[in-house]
């Protein structure tokens, strides 16, 4: 004879596992959506003060547009990869963007030195690798 309390406990455990699974999934999805925004903020740190706020706002808005276009697909990993590629490209070339909109004397400093140091330290933990 099946123990009724065993069935009840099994049902509750299954319910809890489902709920916790959904919560973890939602947590991961939300964090994945935020990571490209973080990369854009890092890119903004490579811009001069006078254009930083505007460009972070512009790039964030563009990222929002990109994510919205891909949200309908319901594919969070795809959305994450597209968003991260967008942010990563901006981060890699932010100094060139900055130089193009800076005074001529500042343009001389615009070497594409994206491999040197500062943001790798900040982004590395998220991407796991330098290459």
């Amino acid at each position, binding site marked *: 004879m099946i123990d009724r309390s065993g069935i009840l406990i099994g049902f509750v455990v299954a319910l809890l596992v489902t709920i916790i699974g959904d919560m973890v999934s939602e947590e991961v999805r939300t964090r994945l959506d935020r990571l490209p925004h973080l990369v854009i903020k890092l890119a903004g740190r490579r811009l001069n003060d006078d254009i930083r706020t505007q460009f972070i706002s512009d790039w964030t*808005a563009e990222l929002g547009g990109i994510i919205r276009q891909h949200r309908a697909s319901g594919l969070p990993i795809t959305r994450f990869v597209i968003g991260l590629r967008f942010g990563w490209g901006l981060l890699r070339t932010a100094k060139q963007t900055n130089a193009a909109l800076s005074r001529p004397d500042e343009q001389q400093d615009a070497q594409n030195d994206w491999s040197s140091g500062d943001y790798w330290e900040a982004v590395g933990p998220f991407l796991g690798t330098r290459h």
Partner: protein
Amino acid sequence: MSEPRVTVAVAAVLRAFLNEPTEPRYGYDLMREIGFPSGKLYPILARLEGAGWLRRDHEDVDPAVAGRPPRALYHLTAEGVRMARYELASLYDQIRPRGHALAKNPLPEGQVS
């Protein structure tokens, strides 16, 4: 304001704008149309903006309603249209096959080269 060097990549961006010179363009739409990643497109847009060939405006949305800042829209300026046409024509002249000119003055019969 210095004139940007018109590389093939810059020319591709200019051509995309010249397809509809009066139409404002989002950065992501240009990325998809031209096939450039953000890291290639946005420095070019900045160079063109710095040269005064492009103007960056913003779409007319209420951030509170949209839940995000307004997206940037890029337009060719009048100077940009003029220079883009000139530079694309110059680039075409540079890369046009010599055979195009030879066709007007073909080699004498029997001469190979």
